[in-house]
């Protein structure tokens, strides 16, 4: 760490002497909560009822060099539901120096990267989810020509403020074939990637020290059509759950993804098929099953439509790529597909006058059909007829009635396995079937003032029964708004109101938001990755400054 800082200082002293344009920029983000007891929710606030996550990032660029440093503090403790390793800590979390020219791009220090779809490797940051799985080491990207580039990585993955002991190596290559094909309408590129993990096995030769994954992909665009395909295989490795090895056997894993698309002006269709069999790759062999999404190398998000409304995101899917072999349940992974359809009516048609736009999404995800044997091995189908985990059908209709008023109508019909939604073994507890309807209207006055109202209802006979939701938001200007919201679970015996009031101010480089209310316990999902948040009541303050 100290050696590294010295190196940065040394590089700076070298480059500041040269005549180059300098640039300092960065950001500060603070997310805090003040929790209070709430007997209606059975929520007792923890002893440290003030919790705050803070991130300060400063970058310095000069000429071909750039550098950055990120300081994070979780004081007195990290917010509820975050990785407990962060509690009570504040440190310089990451730093890097980068130098690049037309051909080469070299990073020393902490870096982020993604290979292909990310199935084989993705190092990224998402503060809402508490994910920062950057790698500390060296990354080199080299463009051999316009058509061929190579990225190599080497290092150790961040885990909290520490590093995992295993070393990670990776190579990703990309070859664009357009030059060789010379078809005007055709774009074709192929890629291959390798990611390896070396982790000491303390002379236990039954556990592999080296585990590698290999992948290949193809991206094809032909006029209005597109086709993307990626396949990954991973070496046999142990399977584990929360630090404990689950079987005496080693199991290999595979991932397959195929995307097809067709679009022209006013119409877009895209469809994805994905199959994940025992496909988890962590930077520590015992990290599998951790509920905080930490130490991941592979990125296998749920492929369903992301919902944004109060009641449409109660029953959300999270992907199930794991192999589980135990007395309670046996499963080998997930297979399924989703399809999106977007359509805008022609301006001259009747519906086009009201700027009618339609979006439809359908998804179906299930277990891969597998038979498990006495000796903990299994026989598996390519798809088969495994337990259904999730099925949804979404319909969205948008209209603009005049220059001031527009509406959005959303309907959602969802079936989710109780184990997926609420926890416990999958495929044996039955389903939750729910229907949700949402009507949203926005009215614009002059001078940036506007009103937005949302009415929604959720129907289900299972779980906590019916809900009704209301949101009203008033924008005093384009910078300042206030809102009130309530999700009322009137169908349940407790009939709890999840109320919230708050507002936000956003001007130039500053954004500030404040709200008070009840947080429904459950999954907060961003980009198909979910974090569990326990029910709580309190004040939340978010500040974001950019400089």
């Amino acid at each position, binding site marked *: 760490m100290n050696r590294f800082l010295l190196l940065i200082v040394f590089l700076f002293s070298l480059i500041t002497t040269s005549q180059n344009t300098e*640039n300092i*920029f*960065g*950001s*500060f983000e603070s997310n805090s909560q003040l929790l209070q007891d709430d007997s209606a929710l059975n929520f007792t606030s923890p002893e440290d009822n003030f919790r705050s996550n803070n991130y*300060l*990032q*400063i*970058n310095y*660029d000069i000429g071909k060099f*750039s550098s950055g440093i990120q300081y994070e503090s979780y004081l007195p403790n990290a917010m509820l539901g975050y990785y407990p390793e962060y509690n009570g800590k*504040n440190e310089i979390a990451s730093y890097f120096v980068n130098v690049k020219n037309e051909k080469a791009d070299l990073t020393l220090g902490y870096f*982020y990267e*993604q290979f*292909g*779809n*990310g199935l084989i490797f993705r190092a990224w*940051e998402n503060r*809402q989810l508490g994910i920062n799985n950057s790698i500390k080491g060296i990354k080199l990207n080299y463009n051999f020509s316009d058509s061929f580039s190579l990225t190599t990585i080497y290092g150790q993955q961040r885990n909290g403020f520490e590093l995992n002991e295993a070393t990670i190596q990776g190579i990703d290559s990309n070859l*664009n074939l357009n030059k060789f094909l010379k078809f005007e309408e055709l774009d074709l*590129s192929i890629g291959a990637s390798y990611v390896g993990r070396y982790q000491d096995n303390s002379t236990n030769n039954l556990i592999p020290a080296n585990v590698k994954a290999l992948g290949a992909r193809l991206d094809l*665009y032909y006029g209005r059509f*597109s086709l993307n395909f990626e396949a990954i295989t991973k070496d046999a490795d142990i399977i584990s759950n929360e630090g404990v090895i689950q079987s005496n056997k080693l199991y290999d894993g595979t991932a397959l993804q195929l*995307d097809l*698309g067709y*679009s022209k*002006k006013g*119409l*877009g269709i*895209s469809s994805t098929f994905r199959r994940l069999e025992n496909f988890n790759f962590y930077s520590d062999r015992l990290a599998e099953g951790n509920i905080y999404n930490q130490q991941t190398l592979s*990125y296998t*998000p749920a492929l369903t439509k*992301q919902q*944004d409304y109060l009641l449409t995101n109660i029953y959300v899917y999270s992907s199930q790529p794991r192999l589980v072999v135990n007395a309670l349940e046996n499963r080998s992974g997930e297979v399924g597909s989703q399809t*999106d*359809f*977007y*359509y*805008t009516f022609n301006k001259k048609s009747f519906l086009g006058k009201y700027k009618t*736009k339609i*979006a439809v999404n359908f998804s179906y995800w299930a277990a891969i059909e597998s038979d498990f044997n006495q000796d903990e091995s299994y026989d598996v189908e390519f798809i088969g007829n495994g337990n259904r985990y999730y099925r949804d059908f979404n319909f969205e209709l948008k209209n*603009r009635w005049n220059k001031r008023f527009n509406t959005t109508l959303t309907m959602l019909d969802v079936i989710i396995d109780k184990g997926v939604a609420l926890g416990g073994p999958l495929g044996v507890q039955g389903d939750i079937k729910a229907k949700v309807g949402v009507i949203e209207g*926005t*009215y*614009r*006055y002059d*001078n*940036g003032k*506007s009103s*937005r109202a949302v009415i929604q209802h959720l129907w289900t006979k299972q779980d906590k029964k019916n809900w009704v939701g209301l949101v009203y938001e008033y*924008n005093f200007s*384009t910078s300042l708004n206030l809102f009130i919201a309530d999700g009322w679970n009137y169908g349940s015996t407790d009939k709890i109101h999840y109320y919230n009031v708050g507002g936000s101010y*956003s001007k*130039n*480089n500053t954004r500030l938001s404040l709200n008070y209310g009840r947080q429904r316990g459950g999954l907060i999902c961003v*980009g198909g990755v979910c974090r569990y948040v326990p029910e709580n009541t309190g004040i939340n303050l978010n500040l*974001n*400054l*950019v*400089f």
Partner: protein
Amino acid sequence: MNKLITIITIIFSISVSSQSVLPDLNLNTLNGEEVSIRSISSDDKIAVVSLWATWCVPCIKELDAISEYYEEWKEEVDFELYAVSTDDSRTIKRVNAMVNGKGWEYNILLDTNNELQRSLGASTIPLTLIVKNNKIVYRHSGYSAGVEFELFDKIKELK
């Protein structure tokens, strides 16, 4: 807490002295061609950069709202809108279908692993910038109905 106040003070003092520019990054188009983000506003060109995602409802509202006037506005002032999708691999394949399905005429760029978003310090989207000669002259995060008119007023000021 005191530490926090010190940090905030430092940031403010830096922010007064610093000038916001776009970072030196290349982003891909939907067909895999590289575009230097610094080239889009060179030579006095006016560029609007809007960070969005297919799953971000307010982002789509903003881009839908601007698309109603985009042609009209471009006739009045010469500018280009670059809609930078921050969709990751979960939703990136939806981008093309959505852009065409909605009939958007924007330049689409992909920020798949959120490099641009990170270096702009954008913890939330939508984030909309007006850039000229690589300098960020206007920045707005969040969407409320009518903000598109404020955006166009700012663009006209730069003409």
